[in-house]
């Protein structure tokens, strides 16, 4: 389980995250929901130590974060953009002991990626798929995805959603931020709603759906008044 405990983050005069605590379980998809600028990406980057929190802590299964067990997938390339996909793979094989080449090859084939393509030449959707393939092939217990659906075409979206419901993702914990709730609503187990850097609601999606008959978007409307 990923435990985020009482974290705070300030950028200059703006308190971006204010005393946020939540958990994300293994084998479940937890979605961080919020309007733009509510601190979703900052939270993911903070968990990975890319923007250290001013206060609070993050534990993975009760221990400090182990980067062999957690992978972060950003909404942009995390390699120099003149790299080809196969160069990215070679780099990952060199530096990630858990990198699974067979799994990567399978994802490359499923996503119809061309290993010799440069990252700079990829469309946003193809880049998202390449990023995801590189992240999943790290074979992590937990996967942190920052806006994986942002600005990508409907077919790429479908392929990624299909992957989420496949056995490849079954045992992994996923913490995702997205604006495109409708596309993955039926996959999400838990939602954590943020507003102005605070958690305004945290709920089990199935409970809300079956007990209250509401979708995540309905709850969003209530909270954000949109």
């Amino acid at each position, binding site marked *: 389980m990923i435990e985020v405990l009482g974290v705070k983050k300030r*950028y*200059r005069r703006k308190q971006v995250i204010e005393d946020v605590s939540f958990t994300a379980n293994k084998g479940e998809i937890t979605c961080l929901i919020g309007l733009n600028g509510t601190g979703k990406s900052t939270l993911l*980057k903070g968990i990975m130590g890319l923007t*250290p929190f001013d206060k609070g802590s993050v534990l993975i299964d009760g221990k400090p974060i182990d980067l062999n067990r957690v992978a*972060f997938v*950003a909404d*942009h390339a995390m*390699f120099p*953009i003149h790299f080809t996909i196969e160069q990215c793979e070679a780099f990952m094989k*060199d530096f990630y002991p858990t990198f699974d080449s067979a799994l990567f090859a399978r994802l490359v084939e499923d996503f119809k990626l061309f290993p010799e393509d440069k990252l700079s030449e990829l469309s946003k959707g193809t880049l998202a798929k390449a990023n995801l393939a590189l992240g999943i092939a790290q074979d992590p217990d937990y996967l942190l995805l920052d806006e994986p659906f942002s600005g990508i075409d409907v077919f790429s979206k479908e392929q990624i959603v299909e992957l989420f419901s496949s056995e490849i993702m079954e045992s992994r914990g996923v913490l995702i931020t997205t604006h495109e709730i409708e596309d993955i609503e039926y996959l999400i187990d838990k939602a954590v709603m943020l507003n102005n850097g605070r958690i305004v609601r945290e709920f089990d999606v199935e409970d809300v759906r079956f007990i209250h008959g509401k979708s995540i978007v309905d709850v969003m409307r209530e909270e954000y008044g949109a």
Partner: protein
Amino acid sequence: MNLLKLLSWEVERVTKPFLTLVAGLIVIQFGYLGYFLWDETNFYEQLRREGNADYQLSFLNYLNGTPYLLSLGIAVAAMLLYSVWIWYRDFQGRGTFMMRLLTMPQKRMTLFFAKLATILMMTLGLFAIEWIALKLQYIAFTSWFDGKMIPMGGSFEQAISYHGMLMVMYPSSLINFVIHQLIITIAVLFIFAFVLIERSFWQRTMWSPVLSLSILVVILTIPILGYAFLSNRLIYDETIVYVGMVLVVWASVTIWLGRRFLQTKLNV
């Protein structure tokens, strides 16, 4: 193991710019050497025609020429800039590659030492290449003037030992060479500390460059002020010990700062 892999990776990234720098230096130096030989020969011929050929040239005359000094200045500037750029380039484009480097399952200091080793290898590489280039220039220099029967004074070693910059690059003793390399390493460590402090505070304040520079200026000046205060009370041996201690303190403090900011404060 990861250190070697990262080092090889950094070296691979710098190979093209490094070779471009080397090619530039060689073109400038040999181009200037050609001009120098032609110009000096004409000058000597003119003196000889005027019956006033009491003229002696040394290799140092060439080495003190502005284009030669400029080529060394370009190399120093390029190395200083690259010491900054080796970090900043990985923050380019929404902090892309730095995100990968910082989320790799390894100690972040591995990255620090890989980048430091890259800069030091580049510096030593430049020194070695420049030494070979100097030897070749000296051979060309002596062969040309010998052929023209123009008298020359001073040896290659003398020219190096009387030249301000070359004396630092190629000191006469191994101990001095090690001390000079240590000073170069400390200079690079200061630059690294500057970048890492600045990158740690850039999201907090727009004054992060000023803040990091101030911290480093304080660290740099305290021992110098201390020396100004103590200099009259120290004998020669004690001064040497003091300077040695200051170098060790500067190296330790900058590495400690680099470690602290890289591991716990850096913002991407």
